[in-house]
């Protein structure tokens, strides 16, 4: 049995979601009847996946139908056709006036503190000149643009606080056992993904002052040590990690092992 009819209905569901058209344009009963008709003959995995896709799209439409009713019964609801007509008739000045009368602007200021200036200067000092950086070097991210805070991951249920704390404890224990060690040797592992994970956790150890860094810009070396060992100057730094750099580290590790 060819699934054209069902595919057309799935596409129609997607159009409703995308174009915000009336979700009641879809006849749910007929859709389910069509699905039922196909399901009797379908056996292959692809066919069953299509069936699951159709059910998923149908549930989204039913959800939209509920929202549609809720919206129409709320005080917000005004016939879109009427509003469209009014918008077409009004002069720009009248529209602007309506906006200003319903506008309560946000009040916020930017500030530049001495601490933030110092962080900027440290970042500048740690950054290689543009022509010395790899072409693939990603654009510097500021703290505001960085992807996820740990709290975001916890809120999104990707990670639990206990899980994160245990991972931190484990890596700190490892560092304490090693003592002062080269930063990249510490974070790099046989898998690149694991290296990124270790670098991420290590950044928390450093931020929470459980570990410290010794940076020698002339020798281009970075050493990490458990913070119990010694205390130094507190400042913000950026250490780049790239896949290429990790591959280089792997090659050097292999050479060292072969040398032995």
């Amino acid at each position, binding site marked *: 049995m060819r699934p054209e009819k069902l595919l057309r209905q799935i596409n129609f569901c997607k159009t409703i979601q*995308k*174009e*915000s058209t009336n979700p009641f344009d879809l006849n749910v009963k007929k859709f389910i009847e069509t699905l039922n008709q196909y399901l009797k003959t379908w056996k292959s995995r692809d066919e069953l996946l299509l069936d699951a896709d159709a059910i998923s799209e149908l549930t989204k439409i039913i959800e939209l139908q509920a*929202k*549609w009713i809720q*919206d129409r019964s709320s*005080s*917000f609801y*005004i*016939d*879109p056709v*009427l*509003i*469209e007509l*009014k*918008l*077409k008739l*009004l002069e*720009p*000045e*009248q*529209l*602007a*006036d*309506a*906006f*200003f*009368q*319903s*506008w*309560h*602007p*946000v*009040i*916020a*200021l*930017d*500030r530049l503190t001495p601490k933030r200036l110092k962080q900027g200067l440290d970042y500048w000092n740690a950054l290689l000149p543009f022509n010395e950086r790899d072409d693939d070097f990603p654009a510097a991210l500021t703290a*505001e*643009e960085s992807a996820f805070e740990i*709290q975001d991951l916890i*809120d999104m249920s990707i990670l639990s606080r206990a899980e994160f704390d245990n991972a931190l404890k484990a890596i700190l224990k490892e560092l304490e056992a090693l003592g002062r060690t080269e930063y990249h040797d510490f974070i790099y592992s046989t898998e690149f993904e694991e290296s990124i994970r270790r670098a991420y956790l290590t950044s928390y150890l450093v931020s929470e002052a459980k570990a410290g860094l010794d940076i020698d810009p002339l020798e281009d070396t970075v050493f990490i040590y458990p913070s119990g060992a010694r205390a130094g100057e507190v400042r913000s730094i950026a250490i780049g990690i790239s896949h290429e750099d990790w591959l280089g580290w792997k090659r050097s590790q292999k050479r060292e092992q072969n040398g032995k």
Partner: protein
Amino acid sequence: MEEESKARAERKVKRAAQLLFFRQHRIPGVKGWELKKTVGDDYIDVIEVLNSSLEKLGMEVKRLTEGKERSDRYIIVLKDNLTEKASGARIDEIAMLSATLAYIITKQGKVSRKSVEEFLCAKFPKHRVLFALDRYIKQGYLGEEDKVLFIGWRTRAEVDRKTLLDLILSA
């Protein structure tokens, strides 16, 4: 003892005011969990005290619901309507924004970018419309995903949507 507790409460209100007035992130305001972390578990009470002070200046702390209480964003907005010009934007740009918001609100808060463009192009040149829409997205008044426009965080914070629709209908 009482003075100590009063001083502590004042410190909390000051800290909350600093957090809310000064931008910490790209989007102004702070999340509930940030306030809880900095001000304490009683941050909602602290916000209420701050609100009573701000009210005298015609401002208020607005809570933008994001689902969970600790994820809600708190933001300071002007409570009263502006009597003087408070934006450098041109009148036609504000008109386009006003029309776009009204159009999107009546379409359940989500509509394809193409249909908004077509709607605005009836009154403004296409290059101006495209430029304006990009600017509203950048400013946070609109959001865009997969060529679908929706109401942005800034509209939710700043615009009384019901009043806007009522004013348009009664104009």
